[in-house]
């Protein structure tokens, strides 16, 4: 979905294919990020306003509170959004707020995160559930370091669809060359983060151009979608392709005669008769029934909240994961992860934390390895405390066996939070990258299905490979880790005897 099919870099870097027009009516979750004054409040206000999500009495309250209106006779949207008195008094937003709007085709949940203070922590929170990120840039300023930081965090949290809103386009005479320069620069950057679904849109949030309504008179040269059209066409992540996963939340025993395992399917699908393993124990059983309130079902897929009945008496407790025999998750004591530190105390090396993933809570100690330098995108060695807002690579050591997929493979079974045992506060959000095995930390192969090849390539070459159709079609079978040349060399040296 690119407005500039004829631009020069198209021949070098393949652009995202247009998103398929799936009428997926599940709500699309998105996050909006921008630097202060890029116009994010104006944009969200405009979205709510033009999709009629602002009710008349709310608008009246708004008009009364703001007293003033902007030069188009619209209320000051920032007041509509800044819900909390304390913030309003200080004139800043400090937390994630959720907004709701809908079109005829789809409904949307917006995680609205502030662009300045604590943005890493807030963005990580908002991005954790988002399928798409809208990144704002002021057309006059172009891409800022802040924009790159936001994009980096969004990609790290697993978002694979970006919309770049080149805002305040009314202030640059709707100059096409400016749009192409900014959008090309952004595309290249996003591709370097592994994001291939990129839509850039020139817009004026203030005037409502290319937000909900097209602006063909102001920008006749722009043939791409409006923001809302782009959002309607975006895809909602689905984990139905991988192996079956059911983190057990509860064992239901309403009477002696019934025992069911309740949870939300976190990946794959299941039907009666399928064989399953209960992890970490590894016990095997067959599915006898899938019970829901809406009668007994003959199948369940990722996302469904179900009750599973097995064909034999086995030991299953809250926190266990019921999985398909094919494509099982990783079970072990040591894992690699990336995490975002969320609280003033930071994450301390060697301290015992509670880790919660799915319905499983267990003790873990953390060993920081490196920290992401957001200004450059480089990982720097870092073994001490990960301060609040730091993004780090860490090693996790469990006292009891843990069960994970990589976050890349499954966002539900690859994610976790850390809880400080003293304050009981949530202090980090994390994503599993690998199980620590014998190969210098390289991910174990998922099943014994033939050979794997480890390549170490320059990033730009890997980028082109990853952008190919063949690669995309077999993405599920590949594992990618970004390393410094030095780290890659080490892995090859350490693993030499096994290869």
């Amino acid at each position, binding site marked *: 979905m690119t407005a500039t099919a004829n631009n020069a870099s198209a021949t070098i870097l393949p652009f995202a294919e247009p998103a398929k027009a799936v009428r997926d009516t599940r709500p699309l979750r998105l996050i909006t990020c921008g630097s202060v004054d890029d116009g994010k409040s104006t944009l969200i206000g405009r979205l709510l306003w033009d999709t009629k999500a602002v009710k008349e009495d709310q608008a009246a309250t708004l008009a009364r509170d703001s007293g003033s209106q902007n030069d188009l006779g619209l209320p000051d949207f920032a007041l509509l959004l800044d819900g909390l008195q304390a913030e309003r008094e200080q004139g800043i937003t400090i*937390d994630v707020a959720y907004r709701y709007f*809908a079109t005829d085709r789809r409904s949307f949940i917006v995680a609205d995160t502030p662009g300045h203070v604590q943005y890493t922590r807030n963005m990580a929170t908002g991005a954790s559930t988002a399928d798409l990120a809208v990144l704002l840039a002021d057309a006059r300023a172009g891409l800022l370091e802040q924009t790159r930081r936001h994009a980096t965090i969004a990609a790290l949290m697993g978002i694979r669809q970006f919309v770049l809103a080149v805002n305040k386009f009314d202030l640059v005479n709707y100059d096409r060359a400016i749009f192409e320069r900014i959008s090309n620069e952004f595309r290249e950057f996003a591709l370097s983060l592994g994001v291939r679904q990129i839509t850039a849109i020139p817009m004026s949030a203030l005037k409502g151009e290319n937000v909900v309504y097209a602006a063909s008179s102001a920008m006749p040269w722009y043939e791409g979608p409006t923001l809302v059209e782009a959002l309607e066409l975006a895809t909602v992540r689905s984990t139905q392709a991988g192996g079956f996963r059911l983190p057990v939340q509860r064992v239901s025993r309403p009477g002696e005669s019934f025992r069911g395992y309740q949870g*939300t399917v976190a990946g794959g699908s299941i039907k009666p008769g399928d064989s399953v393993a209960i992890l970490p124990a590894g016990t095997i059983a067959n599915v006898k029934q899938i019970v829901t309130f809406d009668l007994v079902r003959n199948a369940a897929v990722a996302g469904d909240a179900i009750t599973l009945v097995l064909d034999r008496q086995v030991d299953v407790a809250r926190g266990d994961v019921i999985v398909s025999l094919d494509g099982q998750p990783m079970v072990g004591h040591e894992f690699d992860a990336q995490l975002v530190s969320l609280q003033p105390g930071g994450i301390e090396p060697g301290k015992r934390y509670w880790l919660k993933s799915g319905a499983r809570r267990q003790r873990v100690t953390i060993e920081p390895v490196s920290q992401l330098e957001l200004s450059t995108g480089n990982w720097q060695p870092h073994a001490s405390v990960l301060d609040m807002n730091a993004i780090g690579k860490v090693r996790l050591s469990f006292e009891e066996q843990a069960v994970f997929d990589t976050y890349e493979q499954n966002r539900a079974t690859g994610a976790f939070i850390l809880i400080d045992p003293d304050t009981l506060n949530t202090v980090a959000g994390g994503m599993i990258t690998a199980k620590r095995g014998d190969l210098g930390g390289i991910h174990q192969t998922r099943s014994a299905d033939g050979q794997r090849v480890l390549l170490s390539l320059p990033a730009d070459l890997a980028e082109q490979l990853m952008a190919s159709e063949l690669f995309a079609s077999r993405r599920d079978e590949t594992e990618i880790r970004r390393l410094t040349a030095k780290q890659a060399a080490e892995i090859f040296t350490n693993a030499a005897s096994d290869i």
Partner: protein
Amino acid sequence: MPLSVQETEVKNPPVSRPPLDPHLKALENEAIHIFREVAAEFEKPVMLYSIGKDSSVLLHLARKAFYPGRVPFPLLHVDTTWKFKEMIAFRDEIAQKYDLDLVVHTNQRGKAEGVTPFTHGSALYTDIMKTEALKQALDAGGYDAAFGGARRDEEASRAKERIYSFRTPDHKWDPRNQRPELWNVYNGMIKKGESVRAFPLSNWTEVDIWRYIQAEDIPLVPLYYAAERPYVERDGMMILAEDPRLQLLPGETVQRGSIRFRTLGCFPLTGAIRSTASNLEEVIAELEIATVSERQGRAIDRDQSGSMEKKKREGYF
């Protein structure tokens, strides 16, 4: 030897319905997930049941979440004694029909002191008979988690509310000190005396609620549907004139008209709207063109726009 579900005794077995659309299904799945997580992690949960449409949806979801078992926690209704009569009748009928543990609490001190919406004004009355009463009931029950039907789209101060909303031992809500909430991994660890309010309907909008009620055929208090009813106009609100405790002020007369309610609470504080929507389809049709948000019918929200946040900080649900 575990038996299948057909062989177990279940009250009110479910009926077959067409599948939900993917949007409502996603919201339902999320809510069920939250119900199960809270029920598993907390020692003594309770569900706040206000008898309104959101509570009705919440209860339906709870029944789904724990099926084929019973709802494994009690329902708490804070009865100010000024609720619509039809609400109380509906409450008792539902509790009986679905085999629920119902706890009803009234602030007896407030009642003894004669606190009424007419004599004490809406703010003070709400504070004593609702906020205070709720705290009393939660303390008395020793509940460490309370489910509520609040939605983030209801009011600006709720847009930042977490799904697990953390409360201090004196039930205070500190908007600046809420735990970050990532993915659907909820932190249910609390210290003694602390509690959470859990909001399974956080991501639902008013339209979702109505469409779900329709799709799942959820019974509601009839006051949500238009009918010819007696009312009095007071302070720009239409107040139902059925209860003998409503005394007419000079110049007021009882009128009759086709009215319904978009929200239900204490009858003297809940305004009706003129409507002819006498069934669900008509209510939804009316809603889709409506431009006035539902809370407008509630007197307590109208003082100033920060008022809900203030109430929440003090412990109002």
